[in-house]
């Protein structure tokens, strides 16, 4: 028998109305990377939350390093050597990077916090991970991707023996992902056991030793990665064959919908010009902090525009707020669902109907509940949102299903341009395909689609044209036929020369 450091037997966990885990048995060896896979809501996060003491199991057995464990708390789990990087960011936004990293185990000398020491150590940890952030930066001021890296740094700094990563790469770009993989490889060599959860199946070949697959809270199979194929994994996950991972359709290019001329907005959108035609999806590629999100925010009226023109269907727009943009027909699904996308305390129905109330209300502003129910129902079906019913809080859905709501709420409108900012972040393969199909649908209807993504394969797989951004400028345009990952990377790293910077300074 092999030596397991984590052993689960017949684990069950139920939430009101949902059996999140149903008789799951699973284990982890020293020095291996176990990929835990499954569709949205399969129970992956629930499983690792039990392992890290956040949830308590309803029944079943659970051993760590051969020892039976009862009454695990987060603190106890940490002491036992378990570190977890959560799917949802869990940072104290008002504290600095170093303060977050050492939260709960601050270094103290004579009863006083030794900030210098902690800052130095944090800098060391960040340095090891090649993360270019000052330990004294306030976390709330960092972009999501940087926050994610801090979270990783925090987990690694606990000297854990078991490391759990719940979709660590969903907010990262290629370069950072590579850094992360080399770290994972070295940790593996040092004998760490790593549980790795991700919906980006392409990543697995770089790191995974074994895969364990869950479906609807049940254990499906566990196998060595070498002995299987992606195709097989996917069919185990979704329980059926998935035809195509990137279903591309071709439409004739129609007339020009959107024309952006010399747009400037803040520091991160500089002189941006591009056109968007009927029947196409434009992909926006770039490294993190390239300014893609800022561009979408400026177009959507969420950030003020300094200069430049936005012309929709030949008419010059004056967009001052999202309300103007939505009225004109430009809508946007933002990247950070918790912060910008969802009202988590409201029901799924209320979230979906929020931007559509104008069409759901009569002249007096009274909501037509019947219409609202129908709308929610049709969108939930179209996106296959997995939910007990539409009246539950958006909070109780799994991450992927939450993302579907963020996208889904815009589908009922006759918009001209739909902006998707990282729409597939944290979504399982099958759901991704649904989102791609959705974009294709829009494309077919003659609606312009802007698709911001940091995942090269999907950008290459779905877009008709790719614009690459770097430091707020568009540094290159690639037709899909000529685009490759290398070419994108080349444009994405066209930083302005240093002497220009020093001259302007």
């Amino acid at each position, binding site marked *: 028998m092999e030596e397991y450091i984590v052993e689960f037997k017949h684990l069950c966990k139920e939430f009101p109305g949902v059996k999140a885990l149903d008789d799951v048995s699973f284990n982890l060896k020293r020095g291996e990377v176990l990929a835990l896979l499954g569709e949205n809501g399969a129970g992956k996060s629930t499983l690792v939350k039990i392992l890290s003491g956040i949830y308590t199991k309803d029944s079943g057995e659970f051993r760590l390093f051969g020892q039976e464990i009862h009454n695990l708390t987060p603190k106890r789990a940490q002491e036992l050597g378990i570190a977890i990087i959560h799917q949802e960011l869990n940072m104290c936004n008002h504290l600095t990077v170093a303060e977050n990293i050492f939260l709960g185990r601050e270094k103290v000398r004579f009863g006083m916090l030794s900030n210098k020491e902690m800052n130095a150590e944090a800098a060391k940890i960040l340095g090891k991970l090649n993360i270019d952030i000052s330990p004294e930066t306030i976390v709330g001021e960092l972009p999501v991707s940087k926050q994610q890296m801090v979270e990783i740094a925090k987990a690694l700094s606990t000297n854990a023996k078991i490391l759990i990563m719940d979709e660590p790469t969903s907010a990262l770009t290629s370069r950072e992902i590579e850094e992360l993989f080399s770290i994972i490889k070295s940790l593996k060599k040092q004998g760490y056991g790593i549980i790795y959860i991700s919906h980006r199946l392409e990543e697995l070949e770089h790191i995974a030793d074994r895969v364990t697959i869950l479906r609807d809270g049940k254990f499906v199979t566990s196998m060595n990665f070498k002995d299987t194929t992606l195709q097989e994994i996917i069919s185990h996950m979704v329980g059926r064959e998935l035809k195509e991972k990137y279903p591309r359709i071709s439409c004739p290019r129609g007339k020009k919908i959107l024309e952006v001329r010399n747009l400037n907005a803040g520091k991160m959108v500089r002189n941006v010009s591009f056109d968007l035609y009927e029947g196409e999806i434009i992909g926006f590629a770039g490294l993190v902090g390239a300014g893609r999100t800022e561009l979408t925010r400026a177009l959507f009226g969420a950030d003020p525009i300094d200069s430049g023109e936005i012309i929709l269907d030949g008419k010059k727009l004056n967009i001052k707020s999202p309300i103007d943009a939505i009225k004109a027909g430009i809508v946007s699904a933002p990247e950070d669902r918790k*912060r*910008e996308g969802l*009202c988590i*305390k409201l029901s799924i129905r209320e979230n979906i109907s929020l931007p559509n109330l104008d069409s759901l209300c009569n002249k007096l*502003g009274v909501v037509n509940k019947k219409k609202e129910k129908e709308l929610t129902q049709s969108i939930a079906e179209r996106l296959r949102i997995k939910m007990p019913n539409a009246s539950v809080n958006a909070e109780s859905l799994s991450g992927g299903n939450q993302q579907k709501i963020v996208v889904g709420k815009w589908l009922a409108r006759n918009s001209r341009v739909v902006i998707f900012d990282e729409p597939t972040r944290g979504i399982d393969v099958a759901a991704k395909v649904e989102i791609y199909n959705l974009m294709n649908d829009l494309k077919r209807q003659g609606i312009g689609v802007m698709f911001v993504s940091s995942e090269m394969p999907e950008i290459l797989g779905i877009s008709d044209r790719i614009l690459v951004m770097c430091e707020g400028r568009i540094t290159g345009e690639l037709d899909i036929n000529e685009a490759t990952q290398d070419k994108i990377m080349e444009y994405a790293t066209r930083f302005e020369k240093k002497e220009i910077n020093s001259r302007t300074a």
Partner: protein
Amino acid sequence: MQVKEKTNFFKNIIAMRGMGQVISVSSALVMMCIVFSILNPNFFSGKNISNLLRQVVPILIIGIGQSYVLITGNIDLSIGSIVGMSCMISATLMTRGVNPWVSALIAMLCCLGMGLISGLLVSKAKLPPFIATLGTMIVARGIAQISNNNYNTDAIGEGARGFRNFFYYGQTLGLFNTVWIGLVVFIFFDFILSRTRTGRHIYAIGSNIEASKLSGVNVVFTTTIVYIISSFCAALVGLITTATGGLGTMDAGNGYELNAVAASVIGGVSTLGGQGILLGTVVGSFIWGVLNNGLQFAGAPVAIRNIVIGIVVVVAVLIDIIARTGKVKKAKE
């Protein structure tokens, strides 16, 4: 079939969001009523019930205003002072011979103006609501004071008899007019909050202001409206106060802002925004009203009265929490 539909109807009501707390707090209310009527049977006399209803209405109305503000995730500390302002302005005008109804209208408009200022300070100038409304609270009290040159007004007199009957002393269909006013205010604002677009926007802002903005909600407008509504409710209570006392007093409404928060929160409105229903606020204001009325009837020694009130307020909300924790435990088994 008929029966089944009925059960479904009740099930639906129970399943309504926010109803859980309303039900458990209502049970606390019922318990209180039982205890009080054992202590003094007069408590359940028709006369007292009718009295009690009338006494609860002012708290209920300001509670509704405060609930609106709380649901957007803000707070309105100026409520009490606006009551005073409405009371003083209307009474001053009446004693100077202005028609009572015109006086009431002018007072109302001034108060809505204060609400507008609070709203803009919070939504436009982005002041923390605590500071913005602390400011308008102090200013509104100041306005109440200068209205009649730092004196309470004289009696508003015979000319205002119709006004006083309408707002306090008169009865319609066996109930005091005040009670009808409370009922209309509740039904109207409950409808707005639960059935209309503005209501949805109010919940959305309280739940996630950023997401609401990005969904096309006009946050500045909605937030301002909410403060105006809260001022409207306070001004209405101010008019009731004028009618009740028959004169303007400068310290009318003093401290009501906290009573309003209490009524709201006891009934399940969260001070963090996004949660709660007005029915809860109604139950919350009854808890408050019954406590004050009941303790007098019970002849409780004055000295321990406050202690009892404090404990009951806490216990009423605790019952809900225990009920819910119990539910979670049951679900686990």
